[in-house]
């Protein structure tokens, strides 16, 4: 089951819309087994969510993204988890990572306008008591995300017919 689950994860990671029936064919298992494997992984919170990768620059929507390096004071007994929890509960926050190196948390934020993002940093994030410093960088262009290249085309250099 463990090996099968790894295979299913690889398939879903490549295309999470792959129908159950096709996953069953690809792995040589029956559909019930696949459905069970997926359900177990959802219950175990191995699979958390299914979402597309969107190139928002091509969709007609204003959007600003920032990456904020945050320095915090860890709390006794709770370490960084408590403050991370405070931060990730904000709707603007898309991702939070605990980092090694010069700062503690990397916070990815999304807002509609620059002003909105700025006020998030100054009014919400910096206002948290444990936050001792922030450095905000704006995303100018996205080239690749989760293994997907945004503007590149996958070219196949192979000849159409080879014996």
């Amino acid at each position, binding site marked *: 089951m463990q090996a099968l689950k790894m*295979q299913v994860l690889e398939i879903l990671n490549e295309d999470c819309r792959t129908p159950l029936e096709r996953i069953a064919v690809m792995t040589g298992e029956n559909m019930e087994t696949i459905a069970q494997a997926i359900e177990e992984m959802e219950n175990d919170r191995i699979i958390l969510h299914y979402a597309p990768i969107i190139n928002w620059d091509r969709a007609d929507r204003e959007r600003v993204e920032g990456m904020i390096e945050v320095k915090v004071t860890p709390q006794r007994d709770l370490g960084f988890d408590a403050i991370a929890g405070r931060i990730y509960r904000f709707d603007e926050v898309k991702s939070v990572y605990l980092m090694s190196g010069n700062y503690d948390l990397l916070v990815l934020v999304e807002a509609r306008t620059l002003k909105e993002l700025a006020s998030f940093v100054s009014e919400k994030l910096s206002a948290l008591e444990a936050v001792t410093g922030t450095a905000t960088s704006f995303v100018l262009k996205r080239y690749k995300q989760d293994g997907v290249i945004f503007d590149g085309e996958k070219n196949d250099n*192979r000849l159409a*017919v*080879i*014996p």
Partner: protein
Amino acid sequence: MSRSFVNPLVQNVPPSGIRRFFDIAGTMQDAISLGVGEPDFVTPYHIRNAAMDSILDGETQYTPNKGLPSLLEAISVYLKERFSASYDPEKEIMVTVGASEAIDLALRTCIQPGDDVLVPDPGYVSYAPNVSFVGGHAVSVVTKAEDQFRMTEEGLENAVTRNTKALILPYPNNPTGAVMGKEDLEMVARFAEKHDLLVISDEIYGELIYEGELLSFAAIPGMKERTILINGFSKAFAMTGWRLGYACAPREILSQMNKIHQYTIMCASRQAQVAGRQALVRGLENNFEDVTIMRESYNRRRRVMLDAFRKMGLDCFEPKGAFYCFPSVKNTGLSSEEFCSRLLQQHKVVCVPGTAFGDSGAGHIRCCYATDMNRMLEAFERMKAFLNTL
């Protein structure tokens, strides 16, 4: 009329049967090709990087004729560990420009005018012409769908003659995807012994099997003395364009093969050799992780393709190796050429007619599943639409 300067041995070999399809497909926009014969992965990064380093380090000279000693050593270890085949890196292995050169060398070294060479039908397109170029005569060993396109004792005995000197044994097989298991190889061994034949075992798809253990004919007891083992990096490591292969044979044969190689090729490209060494050395360290990842990906697509053909109503035996399916199109009433030609013209999907691989390929088409999954699914939709028009 001046005399013809062309050697009749060359003149008389017909041009490749799939050339016509290639020409049409090449001019067509948004055709989907299931006609390719190579991996859809690029060579793993660390392998490419090793070649780049070598270039930047100024390694731009010839290598020894038989190849870089460190590569020969790596091949020897690899064959021993993966395929239980023992070859002395100094005397019994040589590096060639693709497995293709190794096939040519094997035939030029061992076959003389009047010799018969047994070649599976259907089989890879270049065996019979290569036999003809040296004045030999290629004799078809018919293989059939009902035998999963394996060679059978009956097929071999029907083809063998007093003049038969060698057998070409290419499994896993292009175009059929057939695999010969241990018992099948043992049957071939008995046959080769009985008729005292040389066996040219082309194991270029040796890593790409989806059931059972990796096998080499040279590992069958008693066979090494009568075997020329041919392999290469193209299929297992997605290195087709590097043109890197090798041949292993008893030293008396290998030294003669190397003589031709010395005078015609000199040596395989140094950077390809460095890359090949990287592929093997890293692979021996990490249990051939790259190969495993690619094999698993092919396997998933193999199952999808097989399932799709069967659901379309095309008979297809389950191919256990290489990356081809070889379904039958007999129940459409079309010949394999008509089928491929109309499928290409009307629905822009390229498949290769089975007859390109010999008369026994009639009624079949070769489809490669080393093809992007979504493109492949689209190709199946087009094929279904085509079948509905028949």
